[in-house]
């Protein structure tokens, strides 16, 4: 099992992590962060392989990954 952490305030809601996660572990939030973006959120902890693709593609370096 692996773990990722999304920095909600750095996230700009670009959806790239959602798009590229091979396991579909990430979704977009409904709420807004301080800047007014809708951030993404880690939803399927159990499926995450820690492949770090989400972190690789995140333009805002908002994701950290543990494995």
């Amino acid at each position, binding site marked *: 099992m692996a773990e990722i952490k999304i920095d909600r305030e750095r996230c700009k809601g670009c959806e790239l992590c959602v798009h590229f996660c091979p396991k579909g572990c990430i979704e977009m939030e409904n709420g807004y962060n301080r800047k007014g973006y809708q951030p993404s959120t880690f939803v399927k902890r159990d499926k995450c392989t820690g492949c770090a693709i989400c972190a690789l593609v995140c333009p805002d*370096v908002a994701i950290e990954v543990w494995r």
Partner: protein
Amino acid sequence: MQKVYSRPKGLTDAEFAYCAGCFHSVAHRMIAEVMEELDIIDRTIGVCPVGCAVFMYEYMACDMIEAAHGRAPAVATGVKRVLPDRIVFSYQGDGDLASIGTAEIIHAAARGENITVIFINNTTYGMTGGQMAPTTLVGQKSTTCPSGRDPKQAGYPLRVCELLATLDGPSYIERVAPTNPAGFNRTKKAIRKAFENQLEGKGFSLVEILSNCPTQWKMSPIESLKWIDEHMTKTFPPGVFVDR
């Protein structure tokens, strides 16, 4: 559990001010990772462009100089000539490098200046509001070619790698398209090689990154990556153009 991805030391803590999904940030981060991996953060001097990446000095953990629009290769040359044992890179957009700065990049390349150039081709002038760039595709709309670039009026896109590859000066020129994880890895590798070459004294290296501009293209980030794959790579095929 072990941490397998964390913020590279080559970046400061500052949040990127780029638009959501803009790949300037991706390029910055990869340069930062390479600086960290090669352990050169404290002897690298970066030269920022005038373009959306004009604030790059806020993000990179190394010494930085803000160049005038288009002149980054000349500024980098000035630094490298007087400090040949430091690592010097410049970072430029397509307006900066391929329009106003055409002479400077060509002559830095022709001189085989021992610097690393990261070239962000997003087919538009992001910062100033989406005007036509030298790399704007035929038919592509912009705020100064509102009905699409008409080659009869505005000519044809400039292919920088192909242009520079005719010179004897460059040691390494590659074009990459970070539109998927494999492309990301390829991009990172190219940037790394462009810095390693400088460490080895091989001379001029340039990596052209096919990048996006979701804002001026009026697309979502995901659509923008698709657009790169489907349209940009036709005019700008990725590949290694010089490696010697």
